[in-house]
């Protein structure tokens, strides 16, 4: 990266990277959690077991707050295309605007229309429609992910476009653009990663309750469902989706693959470095410990395949921060491997009926939940740092994409504003989610003070009725 602070592209990248990374902490959980809600709601519908409804009620609250922060931090993203990346928007808006608009028209409308019904509509909608609301929200959130990944896939591997007479891009084939092979691989990989986050969080809350000896039935439900989904999704995120993603990079962005692996010199039978630090100035990988032939095999299918090295390409085609790219990619892989091992062992213990009786495993599961967030972030850093120095791969350079009329000072000023505002939102979010988790899924009748409590006593006469009321929906 050209980290010269007088470079306007640097500050706009920093700002977009920061707001996007922060924003994506929330959708990755809602996209993963949404299918838990659908599944539990479906079980409740089929079996009529109260514990599933209770789980939905509890997680819908966690979901709701995540969704809200996702909305408020997501709206700036779309506008930053215009504010900070005006030249890019002017150049490619006719293409990427299609999916940005589709995301609003097909995904956000669906999601936002039904999220209220999911969180507050249980009683008034009845079980069937409440299930439908959960399904609509889950579909909406995944559709939104799809449209955004098509947009990103175009930047990684542009297809379906044509250059118009004025030099700007337009759509040549809508189906070609939407069915970008890169988008499908990336979507599969990313959505599995979102399921990893969702299932790790569900598992962690289950482990937290199990360790404290609280909400035993619910804890059991979260631990069983969570570890099962976590194992499946952790495997799928690595193979086949992650594997296919790496092959896609090898095919269409060979220079990126070389940088991700710190390969300066090309060759056949190239290994994967388990440990090593790229030294760009000296053009070598320091102290590498390699698995021989692994990269040739993983990227191109045989151990003798030729893997290109960075030195085969002009330096201005290299990703501009090779060290960061290398560390992001390698740490993501390391974390992914640990996820499979941890959840494989937890699933084994669960199958043997020993999950809740091994405290150290519960501790590990409880403390594991931040790492999928880190792994997701590292994955996106790999994708976006790997795409450099291009904004649209092979067509349009990042240094040409920023808004020429916006000064560095303006960008830094708004960046600082975002950092401050998002810090406060993060504190609020953690505090309120912490309260919800401390309060727990079992309804506790609190004889609270304050005016609200007195108005509550007007409507309900018996504790049973109060519980029924609290379980009900809020109508607006």
């Amino acid at each position, binding site marked *: 990266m050209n980290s010269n602070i007088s470079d306007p592209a640097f500050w706009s990248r920093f700002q977009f990277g920061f707001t996007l990374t922060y924003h994506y902490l929330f959708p990755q959980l809602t996209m993963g959690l949404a299918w838990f809600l659908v599944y539990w709601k479906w079980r409740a519908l089929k079996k009529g077991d109260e514990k599933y409804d209770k789980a939905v009620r509890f997680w819908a609250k966690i979901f*709701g707050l995540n*969704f*809200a*922060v996702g*909305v*408020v*931090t*997501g*709206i*700036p993203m*779309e*506008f930053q*295309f*215009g*504010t900070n990346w*005006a*030249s890019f*928007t*002017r150049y490619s*808006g*006719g293409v990427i*605007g*299609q999916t*940005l*608009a589709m*995301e*609003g*028209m*097909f995904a*956000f*409308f*669906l999601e*936002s*229309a*039904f999220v*209220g*019904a999911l*969180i*507050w509509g249980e009683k008034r909608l009845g079980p069937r429609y409440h299930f439908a609301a959960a399904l609509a929200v889950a579909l909406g959130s995944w559709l939104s992910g799809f449209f955004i990944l098509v947009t990103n896939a175009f930047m990684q591997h542009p297809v379906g476009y044509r250059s118009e007479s004025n030099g700007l891009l*337009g*759509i040549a084939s809508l189906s070609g653009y939407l069915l970008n092979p890169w988008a499908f691989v990336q979507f599969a990989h990313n959505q599995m990663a979102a399921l990893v986050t969702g299932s790790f969080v569900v598992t962690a809350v289950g482990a937290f309750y199990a360790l404290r000896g609280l909400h035993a039935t619910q804890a059991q439900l979260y631990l069983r469902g969570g570890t099962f989904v976590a194992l499946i999704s952790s495997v799928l995120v690595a193979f086949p989706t992650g594997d296919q993603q790496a092959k896609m990079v090898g095919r269409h962005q060979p220079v990126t693959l070389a940088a991700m692996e710190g390969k300066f010199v090309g060759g056949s039978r190239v290994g994967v470095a388990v440990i090593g630090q790229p030294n760009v100035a000296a053009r070598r990988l320091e102290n590498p410990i390699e698995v021989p032939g692994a990269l040739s095999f993983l990227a191109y299918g045989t151990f003798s395949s030729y893997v290109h090295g960075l030195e085969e390409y002009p330096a201005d085609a290299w990703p501009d921060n090779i060290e960061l790219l290398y560390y992001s990619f390698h740490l993501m892989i390391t974390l992914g491997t640990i996820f499979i091992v941890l959840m494989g062992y937890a699933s084994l213990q669960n199958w043997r009926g020993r999950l809740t009786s091994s405290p150290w495993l519960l501790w590990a599961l409880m403390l594991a939940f931040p790492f999928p967030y880190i792994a997701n972030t590292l994955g996106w850093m790999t994708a976006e740092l790997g795409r450099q120095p291009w904004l649209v791969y092979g067509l349009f350079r990042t240094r040409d994409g920023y808004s020429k*009329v916006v000064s560095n000072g303006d960008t830094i000023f*708004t960046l600082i*504003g975002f950092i401050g*505002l998002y810090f406060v939102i993060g504190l*609020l979010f953690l505090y*309120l989610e912490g*309260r919800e988790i401390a309060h727990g899924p079992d309804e506790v009748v609190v004889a609270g003070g*304050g005016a*609200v*409590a007195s*108005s*509550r006593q007007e409507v309900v006469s018996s504790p049973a009725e109060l519980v029924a*009321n*609290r379980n*009900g*929906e*809020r*109508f*607006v």
Partner: protein
Amino acid sequence: MIATWYVLVSLMLIIYVALDGRNFGAGMLHWLVARTPEERRQVVAAIGPLWSWHEVWLVGFGGTLVAVFPRLMASAFAGYYLALFLILWSLILRGVSIEVGGHIDDHLWQGFWDSVFAFSNFLLGILFGVAAGNVGRGVPLDAEGTFSMTFFTDFRVRGYVGLLDWYTVSVAIFAVVILAAHGATYLMLKTEGPVHDRSAVWAKYLWSAAVPLFLAISVESWVVRPDVPEHAISNPFCWLGLLIAVGSIIALISGLSTRRETRAFVGSSALLVGLLVTGAAAIFPVMLYSTIAPSNSLTAYGVASSHKTLVLASFWWPVGFVLATAYFVFISRRYAGKVSVKRDAQGFY
């Protein structure tokens, strides 16, 4: 094709203003119509779980704008840089204040978020009003179709103008009044008891105040852009907008005087739609007028995507719009009626 897309993009923004405008208005009046913490919960509940649905129309507008008029988005959003971030931050604060305020039953906590709520909505009303004024007046576009503006210069409406001048400020005042009136009409419909009664009083005062302000704005607009009315007379959409506006004024007045609150609110929403349709039609095809040289102005024809891109978008876009309308029907039925603030541990109210 380009004119059709101009209509559709304007429609998205107009629907957004009519939907979210009620929330801005209700938010501005928050502390005026609701005097106790419980009453303020009523106002928040009236906006409650629908604010994100309303805000999504802004996202739909933004996405469609990128697809159809990318060069307008590029020029305007970069040019309005700091003002746009003020809008974004206010939207964030507004959303956060609605969401977190009800999570804790504590008067200090809720009082703080109620203030953030009122303040951010008031700021949004002003900022959107200033934005509307800027679109009407124009900005200092250079020959390359870009501009960069300060908050204010000499408060005059020609040459190197700033964000604020006598015209945009008066549009902002009008916007605040009319959005507050719209919000008061909405609160009449959705609330009961003292909040309802105070909202009814505010609605009458605010709508009365809107009349002279509207006349003043009309004259001012004619002074600022004397070329616009000549175009407007021959544009049937202008007449359609005026027709909607006149019809909705009748509905509004009859609704307010006979206490038919649904009719009044439909009239109030339609009035916003009518005024904005008239405005959007009047300036067509210029989307951003240059205060330096009219030839630098950005027209719909100059900033649109290629013909093929527009044709392709017109296949899928109407499907999305029809779906959105279907959700709209679902929502209107599901959330009909007065709000209740019974505490039921299901999140905020």
